[in-house]
């Protein structure tokens, strides 16, 4: 694989796309071929399966540039695998299929997310060069420093405001435009910021917040409005603590469209009969909304709130490109990057762990939610 990717990188950019896609799809086609024949009985299929059990892991290991050891391990693995599979209660080929479906994703997650997470967690308890165990020193450093506490607090502010406000705006907008004329155009207008990169959005909003000294003509829209109302132009991004709020506006602007699109689809899924029944009972529009629509879209609301919460906990690009954390606007993700650039790997990792701990409640809540849904099913 390494050789293939090396060769492909010498080609022109646009020629690489079809080639790499073809190679990928060929591998997937082979995988699906084996999955197809896995449950069939008969000596021929048994032999093919047994061969695949040894060949596929072997090929994967070879592709990743490994040695004879790997091939040996693959053979052993394949034999064991085949034996277990044959004895499985679920029928021939069961384990084979399971691994075929799951292993590509799980393998990538293991090397790309699980292994790095463990490594970072270990680093959080090491000194800046990762050579000596220092216990909780890095965490103590974060929570005894003004800027450290400030950074954590700012992140809390982000995660409290952004999900709630964008969900409320998105939900209200979705309800307002539901079944109205030109609904599609309305949707597109608010969803558009979602298609804009955080860097692009930062440029847009820096332009809105741009400030000129009083008396000169303003080029930033917000200050022009202030001047029209008879005020003095304000430097929005340098007066703390309000500057954090002006950064938060940018993320709200981006995420509202996301909330709106998903909630709008969910609203359309609320059964019309329920709404009509409530209407016949003499409820008004607000009561119908609270008692019928909201319970009907509850699971979508949870997904939206979760996704936006996680996005705002991890916010990086906006802070980085608009203020780079100056004037007390820093957030954890930004501080992590700054510490890493300053070769304070231990502190950077400690920030990562703090962030991880902050997201944990959200995940636990969602996990319980998922489990509940599965029990219903």
């Amino acid at each position, binding site marked *: 694989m390494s050789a293939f990717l090396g060769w492909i990188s010498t080609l022109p950019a646009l020629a690489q796309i079809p080639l790499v896609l073809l190679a990928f799809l060929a591998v997937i086609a082979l995988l699906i071929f084996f999955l197809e024949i896995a449950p069939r009985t008969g000596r021929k299929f048994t032999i093919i399966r047994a061969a695949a059990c040894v060949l596929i892991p072997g090929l994967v290991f070879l592709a990743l540039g490994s040695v004879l050891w790997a091939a040996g391990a693959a053979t052993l693995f394949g034999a064991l695998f085949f034996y277990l599979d044959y004895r499985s209660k679920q029928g021939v080929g069961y384990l084979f299929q399971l691994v075929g479906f799951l292993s590509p994703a799980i393998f990538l997650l293991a090397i790309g997310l699980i292994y790095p*997470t463990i490594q970072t967690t270990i680093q959080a308890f090491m000194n800046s060069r990762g050579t000596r165990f220092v216990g909780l020193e890095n965490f103590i450093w974060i929570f005894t420093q003004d800027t450290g506490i400030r950074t954590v607090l700012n992140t809390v502010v982000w995660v409290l405001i952004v999900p709630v406000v964008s969900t409320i705006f998105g939900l209200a907008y979705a309800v307002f435009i539901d079944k109205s004329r030109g609904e599609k155009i309305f949707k597109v207008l608010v969803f558009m910021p979602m298609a804009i990169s955080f860097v692009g959005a930062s440029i847009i909003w820096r332009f809105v917040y741009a400030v000129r000294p009083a008396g000169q003509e303003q080029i930033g829209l917000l200050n022009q409005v202030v001047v029209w109302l008879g005020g003095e132009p304000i430097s929005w991004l340098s007066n703390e603590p309000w500057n954090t709020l002006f950064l938060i506006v940018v993320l709200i602007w981006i995420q509202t469209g996301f909330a709106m699109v998903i909630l709008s689809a969910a609203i359309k899924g609320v059964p019309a009969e329920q709404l009509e029944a409530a209407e016949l009972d003499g409820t008004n529009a607000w009561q119908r909304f609270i008692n019928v629509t909201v319970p009907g879209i509850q699971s979508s609301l949870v997904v939206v709130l979760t996704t936006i919460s996680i996005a705002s906990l*991890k916010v990086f690009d906006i802070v980085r490109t608009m203020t780079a954390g100056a004037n007390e606007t820093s957030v954890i993700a930004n501080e992590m990057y700054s510490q*890493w650039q300053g070769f304070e790997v231990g502190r950077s990792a400690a920030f990562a762990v703090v962030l991880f701990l902050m997201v944990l409640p959200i995940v636990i809540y969602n996990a319980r939610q998922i489990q509940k849904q599965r029990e219903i099913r």
Partner: protein
Amino acid sequence: MTATVPARVAVDKKTQKQLARGEKFGAAKRTKKRLTSRGATIAALVIAVLWTTPTFGLFISSIRPPEEILRNGWWTIFQNPGFTLNNYVEVLAAGNSTLNLAGAFINSIAITLPATIFPLVLASLAAYAFAWIKFPGRNWMFIGVFALQIVPLQMALVPLLSLFSRGLSIGDVELFASLNASNAYSQVWIAHTIFALPLAIFLLHNFVSQIPSELIEAARVDGAGHGQIFFRIVLPLTMPAIASFAIFQFLWVWNDLLVALVFADGRVAPMTKLLAEITGSRGQDWNLLTAGAFISILVPLIVFFALQRYFVRGLLAGSTKG
């Protein structure tokens, strides 16, 4: 609801009254609905205007001559007319020593297309397994995958980068060799694929698990294995969901800065990275910034406008459960 004639049924007085109230309510409903919808429409209009103004201002600014941009606000375009495409010409040639914005545009395409397709294929395989193959520890494993969403990218970037450049070996056994592919797209493709998987598996699982179980069981009774069920039943039925997630993934990869900062260097850098560089080094060149930002917005907007049909349909497919 229009042409139904109510059947005459013998009822007592109380029910008759109730029915009458229902009819009156039906008549009043139409006018009432129009009234509330007028207020709602105004509110919606206000939100729509607030949400579009910043982008609109950026677009207007990008086609104004540089001196005008710096002298007065874009809303004075009618008092100070003047249009030019020079900003666009200039910004396409701007950049650093190895790359200009036009080249970065091509890079963005070369990074985004594979990085959209890889995770979708792998995630739909995994989502099927989590939804329809029973195995011990399935719930915990699924929750584990969901939980990986929260691993901040920053936490994974550096170890992953060293994994790519040095390989991984435990003791003397080399698990895999280095990718030796700096200045190539492969690192970025793999990184984006990995980072997209948790959310993709989670969302696709939601759709896949909502397929009526009778359908799957009927196929199984007919002798279809998991491979056939996946390919013939699940994949076609989840196509709308896959399409809508593909659009999201496309937008995310196209707009990503952080992964690009770490994995795509030199001549393979995408547009966001170059744009961030231009923002940093010439923060006051509003003519270049506005034109550059608008070029980077253009492709996502085209994709979004062209495919929004599919994507609303896909989201609908998931939300209407039987």
